[in-house]
């Protein structure tokens, strides 16, 4: 048996030690030597503030009453931490980059820095967490009772201290501790090194204490796990679950998963106090391990207690009662310190988190509204105002907790109160998930969803918790308000037969999420909301350093400094201004402050007073000529339009450029044609001039010289005749060519048999061939080849080519070979000779006008061509959709190939195939 004095003194000494620990680590952090206190393991230990006295004492009680349900409370957080990469990492990243200070700040900042949402969240947090604080006070008083009077009789015997006074004393000491270490300063990132160190230490203490008791009970008293279970069986206790894992198991799992993110104290420790995102990497497995170790012995302790303790003893206190009944007072005291640790750490962190929320989101906005002119605040420093309001709210919070404890007295077991609180804060979950992952969730959706969820929670969970103390509430629960049974708190809309917790979780989350989604879809976001939504949802996609520039500023630096000084303190404001090269003293001249600086300042201030308040405060200063966001968006829209317009212009100028290019090309083509025409004219003149000259000279001789004999006259006249024939022929050909090129009016394609035409042409040329003693041989011939052509013109082409082949052939045994055949779609004729062939340099332009492959000396002979024949043939064949080309034949001389489409077939593809 321990004396109450001794127990209380031990507790006080323990708290004293925490003071020293917190003081030392704060001092070290100040000197920049936070080292060990900022390790991932300290971070993990501090997260285990999740395990409150409810866990420490209550888990054993739950295990004794409800079997394995207590495990769900740990397994939910385990799932969340195993998946830290998905949710926690995003929360930490956002909170670091946006200087988030609490759950309320997170939601308010995401939903357009809404003050109303922040106030609502703060209110819900206070209402849900106060019972939780009361629960810790209750746990401490009952544990002191249990450890100092083994019989478990009621309090009031402890050296003049009854439960109430004891609780009040504890609340006061806790308030002092929290105020001293939790509100040392208004920190840019709301990190409290001293507190975290103390919490981590307490976490270690409670773990060691619980495991020590576990080992003592299981191995010292029980003789191993197996024997503990065997003994429980002997005592007639059912060691198995009392039924299937059902809806309640699921509900508790969901609630605990939600709570480990949404509880203000968890958010504070896990997200806000996080100094390095990589610490989550360790916490991801270390925190589940901590929870695992905390629960290994829970069930055996409960079973052993049930089997050995009297039936009326409180299972919540087994962890103290078992060592004491075995006479191990030292272990009992250690276990008491463990439970005390878990209770105090929860009280400390929860009250810090709540006080930050209350001061930033309730007190600050009111103070800002009351003092429209900041000048009138005089020496009432905003930082001081914040600190004062935080201290008061910590005291207020603990007092509220105490009052709740006082009113509810010694009712119920510990666990139900904890779950009520969990269900309350779980109302943040839908908005929080929407904040992180749903870009289009609106502030109206978040506010109404949370509010509806909260009201449903208050109706279905919070109110019924007063059932045992208030007869009015008991009647209301039995009959419903005004006798409307469909609204009964624990059978809403007639949903009966469910566990009250399941009932509440189902309806609250359904209403909450449903309202959030519906209202979000029905309303639209403001510009600021849209910006914040992008910042939150796309946090991992953003390039570092690209903050949106929300306030445009041409405020004087004096005004800005005035505000900054009041929030951040003179020292930090000065540093901030100096590092950004912004003058802050004596610069009454309006200095062009960049909007980037104002954004930075706003963010720094948000770290102290919350996003909403910082925004309001800075807006006031910059309001002189501030541009409203809507206006900004309008300007942006205009800019967008200008950009679009200039884009159009660019488009047009590209079009113009291409038109000009086309014109240039057409022009150069025209010039080329013009040049060709000039060339043609000069060539024609040249061609005409030669015969004309000889005609003129011979006719002059005939006129002048009368001494000419008849023979000579005869010869001269015949030359004149030859030349005029040649001239006529030339003019005929030129006319022919011109007619072909400009489209002959009487040109008519009809169906003809090309073979017949070819035969006729060969017959025509026979005389010439005989004259030149050239053999014309038709080798293999197609039997028929109906093509769509002009028979006369086709004949002209054949005659021209055959005649050329005959007349230019000066070989020893001159011959011309004519071959023809048809393919699937074409009729082909090849006319080859064994003459000199076409010299290489002429091959490419043999079909041009006035091109002659033979030497110029031949010009005078009447048989030599004028250089127009092939060109005319080429044009004719083209007009019949065919092709005339020079190919390499099997004879040494030239070989011309004429390809004509058979009736009704295009030639282009075929031409490629035949020649290829």
């Amino acid at each position, binding site marked *: 048996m321990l004396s109450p004095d001794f127990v209380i003194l031990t507790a006080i000494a323990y708290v004293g030690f925490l003071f020293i620990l917190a003081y030392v680590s704060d001092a070290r952090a100040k000197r920049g030597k936070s080292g060990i206190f900022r390790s991932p393991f300290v971070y993990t230990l501090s997260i285990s503030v999740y395990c409150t006295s409810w866990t420490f004492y209550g888990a054993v009680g739950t295990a004794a009453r409800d079997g394995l349900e207590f495990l769900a409370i740990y397994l939910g957080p385990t799932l969340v931490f195993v998946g*830290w990469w998905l949710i926690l990492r995003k929360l930490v990243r956002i909170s670091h980059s946006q200087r988030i200070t609490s759950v309320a700040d997170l939601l308010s900042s995401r939903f357009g820095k809404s003050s109303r949402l922040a106030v609502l969240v703060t209110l819900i947090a206070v209402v849900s967490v106060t019972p939780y604080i009361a629960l810790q006070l209750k746990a401490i008083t009952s544990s002191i009772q249990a450890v100092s009077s083994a019989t478990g009789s009621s309090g009031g015997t402890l050296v003049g201290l009854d439960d109430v006074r004891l609780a009040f004393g504890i609340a006061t000491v806790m308030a002092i501790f929290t105020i001293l270490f939790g509100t*040392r*300063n208004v920190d840019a990132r709301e990190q409290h090194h001293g507190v975290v160190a103390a919490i981590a230490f307490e976490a270690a203490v409670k773990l060691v204490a619980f495991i020590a008791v576990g080992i003592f009970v299981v191995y010292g008293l029980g003789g191993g796990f197996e*024997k503990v279970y065997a003994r429980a069986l002997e005592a007639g206790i059912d060691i198995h679950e009392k039924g299937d894992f059902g809806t309640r198991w699921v509900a508790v799992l969901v609630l605990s998963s939600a709570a480990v993110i949404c509880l203000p104290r968890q958010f504070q420790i896990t997200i806000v106090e996080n100094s390095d995102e*990589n610490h989550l990497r360790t916490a*991801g497995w270390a925190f*589940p391990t901590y929870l695992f170790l905390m629960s290994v012995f829970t069930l055996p302790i409960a079973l052993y207690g049930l089997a050995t303790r009297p039936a009326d003893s409180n299972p919540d206190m087994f962890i103290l009662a078992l060592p004491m009944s075995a006479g191990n007072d030292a272990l009992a005291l250690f276990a008491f310190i463990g439970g005390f640790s878990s209770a105090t750490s929860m009280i400390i962190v929860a009250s810090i988190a709540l006080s930050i929320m209350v001061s930033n989101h309730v007190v600050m906005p009111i103070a800002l509204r009351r003092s429209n002119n900041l000048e009138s605040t005089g020496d009432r420093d905003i930082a001081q105002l914040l600190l004062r309001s935080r201290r008061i709210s910590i005291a207020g919070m603990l007092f509220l907790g105490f009052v709740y404890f006082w009113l509810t007295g010694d009712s119920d077991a510990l666990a139900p109160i904890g779950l009520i609180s969990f269900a309350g804060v779980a109302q943040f979950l839908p908005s929080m998930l929407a904040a992180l992952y749903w870009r289009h969730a609106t502030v109206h959706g978040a506010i109404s969803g949370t509010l509806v969820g909260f009201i449903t929670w208050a109706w279905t969970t919070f109110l019924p918790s007063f059932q045992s103390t208030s007869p009015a509430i008991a009647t209301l629960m039995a009959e419903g308000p005004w006798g409307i049974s469909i609204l009964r708190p624990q059978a809403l809309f007639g949903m009966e037969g469910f566990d009250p917790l399941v009932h509440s979780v189902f309806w609250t989350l359904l209403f909450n999420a449903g309202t959030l989604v519906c209202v979000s879809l029905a309303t639209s976001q403001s510009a600021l909301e849209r910006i914040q939504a992008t910042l939150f949802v796309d946090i991992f996609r953003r390039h*570092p*350093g690209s903050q949106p520039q929300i306030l445009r500023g041409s405020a004087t630096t004096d005004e800005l400094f005035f505000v900054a000084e009041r929030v951040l303190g003179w020292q930090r404001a000065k540093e901030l201004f100096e590092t950004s090269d912004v003058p802050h003293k004596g610069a009454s001249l309006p200095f062009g402050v960049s909007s980037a600086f104002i954004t930075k300042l706003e963010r720094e201030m948000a770290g102290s007073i919350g996003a909403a308040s910082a925004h309001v405060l800075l807006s006031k200063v910059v309001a002189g000529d501030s541009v409203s966001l809507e206006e900004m968006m309008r300007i942006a829209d205009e800019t967008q339009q200008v950009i679009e317009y200039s884009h159009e212009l660019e488009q047009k100028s590209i079009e113009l450029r291409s038109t000009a290019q086309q014109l240039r090309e057409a022009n150069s083509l025209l010039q080329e044609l013009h040049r060709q025409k000039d060339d043609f004219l000069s060539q024609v003149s040249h061609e005409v001039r030669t015969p004309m000259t000889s005609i003129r000279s011979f006719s002059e001789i005939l006129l002048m010289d009368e001494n000419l004999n008849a023979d000579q006259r005869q010869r001269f006249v015949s030359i004149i005749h030859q030349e005029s024939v040649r001239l006529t022929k030339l003019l005929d050909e030129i006319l022919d060519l011109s007619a072909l090129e400009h489209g002959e009016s009487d040109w008519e394609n009809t169906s003809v048999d090309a073979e017949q035409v070819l035969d006729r042409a060969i017959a025509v040329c026979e005389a010439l061939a005989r004259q030149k003693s050239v053999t014309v041989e038709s080798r293999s011939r197609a039997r028929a080849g109906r093509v769509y052509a002009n028979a006369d013109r086709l004949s002209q082409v054949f005659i021209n080519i055959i005649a050329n082949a005959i007349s230019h052939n000066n070989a020893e045994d001159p011959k011309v070979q004519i071959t023809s055949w048809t393919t699937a779609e074409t009729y082909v004729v090849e006319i080859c000779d064994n003459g000199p062939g076409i010299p290489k340099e002429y091959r490419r332009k043999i079909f041009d006008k006035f091109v002659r492959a033979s030497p110029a000396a031949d010009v005078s002979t009447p048989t030599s061509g004028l250089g127009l024949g092939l060109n005319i043939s080429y044009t004719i064949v083209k007009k019949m959709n065919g092709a005339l080309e020079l190919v390499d034949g099997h004879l040494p001389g030239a070989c011309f190939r004429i390809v004509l489409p058979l009736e009704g077939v295009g030639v282009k593809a075929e031409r490629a195939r035949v020649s290829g």
Partner: protein
Amino acid sequence: MAKRPFVKEEDARKAAEAVFFAQICGALLLLPPIINLFNKRLSLFGVPLEVLYLFLVWIVLIASAVVISASVPRASADEQLGEEPAQPTNESGKEGG
């Protein structure tokens, strides 16, 4: 986990998928109906099967968390802060503990 020369974004995407998968599997194992398969009033070494099952799942979850933590890409200090490194902060004006 060996360091593989992955592009960082690819790593992050794979990590997110693996983590999501692990979470879903964990949740499935812990929820009815699977959990009730092990709730048949049987005992192993004198300990109820459902208790052993739950602790086993728990250990598997912790092990997967260790693997996940070892394999996901680390965040650099720049990424975390968005811009300049954190400044020394405990320098508030006249107040103090």
